[in-house]
């Protein structure tokens, strides 16, 4: 603690005095406490705001209509697209989610997520080879979605589906990952 106009000895004395004064020490501690309270008052709402996105409440997943059953040909696999049920006004085309619909005949379907189970790249259906193939690292899947070759650790993510009022519905609404498939 440097105090101008005093020699070293006097400075030492002054510093010792300041240190030893109970009122000053008290006010210093009070200052710390008040600043701490202010810091908490600011931090709590900020953390609450930020951490709110860890909490995944709300109906992110729901039943989504993909279109009339007749629009999917029997023994064919085709691309369908839906608007994600949970969306914001400024999402634009990013909330349009594609998926692969395989109609095995009658009301038997399989609906696969677009994302490869390796790292989420968009898989594509090849009618010629009857395989789904991923452009990123060469993952391949059979027409029933099971793993054929490459790095993917499992078969394709498959949506739950139902048929109601002549429409094909799937249950979805979030990006599928290994720990949370569809």
């Amino acid at each position, binding site marked *: 603690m440097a105090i101008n106009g005093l020699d070293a000895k006097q400075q030492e004395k002054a510093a010792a005095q300041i240190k030893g004064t109970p009122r000053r020490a008290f006010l210093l501690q009070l200052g710390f406490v008040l600043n701490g309270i202010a810091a908490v008052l600011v931090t709590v709402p900020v953390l609450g705001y930020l951490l709110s*996105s*860890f*909490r*995944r409440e709300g109906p*992110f*997943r729901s039943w989504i209509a993909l279109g009339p059953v007749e629009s999917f040909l029997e023994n064919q696999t085709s691309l369908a697209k839906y608007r*994600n049920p*949970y*969306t*914001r006004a*400024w*999402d*634009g*085309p*990013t*909330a349009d*989610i594609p998926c692969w619909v395989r109609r095995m005949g009658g009301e038997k379907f399989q609906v696969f997520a677009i*994302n490869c189970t*390796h*790292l*989420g*790249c*968009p898989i594509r259906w090849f009618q010629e080879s009857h395989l789904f193939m991923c452009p*990123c690292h060469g993952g391949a899947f059979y027409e029933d979605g099971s793993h054929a070759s490459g790095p993917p650790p499992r078969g394709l993510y498959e949506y739950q589906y139902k048929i109601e009022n002549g429409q094909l519905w799937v249950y979805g*609404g*979030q*990006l599928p*990952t*290994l*720990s*949370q498939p569809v």
Partner: protein
Amino acid sequence: MIERLRNIALWIDDRVYISRIFAATAGHKVPRTSGSWFYVFGSGTLLCFMIQIVTGICLALVYVPSANEAYGSLEYLNYQQQLGWFLRAMHNWGSNFMVAIMLLHVAQVFLFGAFKYPREMTWISGVILLLCTLGMAFTGQVLRFDQDAYWGLGIGAAMAGRVPLMGPPIVHMMLGGPIIAGETLSRFFTLHVFVIPGTIIAIVSLHLRLVLTKGINDYPGPGKLVKKET
């Protein structure tokens, strides 16, 4: 007139010590053998960073961080905004060069053994800067919000989803929602424009302070012993 300007400059310098900072940095003594081209990569990376700040601010004047409009605003920059294409190209090349020159810097420091005592903290702060720079490169390419950015985020989410137990909440936090959409872009925009650059500026200050206080290393040579005091 010149005398007057000189007096003004001296008046300011008396109060803010610019010449002293200059003498302490540009006039800082280094080993004679360190006057080598091998020692320019750090300054080179910093120069790239400064170019990135200037061009980044210019691009932010026009760019719209909205999932629906981001790509359209880039097309506006490319085709309508005067010299917009040039600044975008500078920012793009600047980022490539920043990463490349930074890696040269890391390799040089590693091979010359400059990370050793007493410069461990210079190295550690440099590693943080390396991570920040790579973070800037990733978050920056996300801002285009084209197919590349979208599926790049998908890969990021797939990786985050592999974290044991905490996977799904981390993915949700990263995307700002259940899918890659509007809030994902806002998040990466905030990281790219506020959070990471602020961190870089703070750590670069520390890094440069350490370069001055702990010095830089002597040019190594076979059989040349390192002086303990340097």
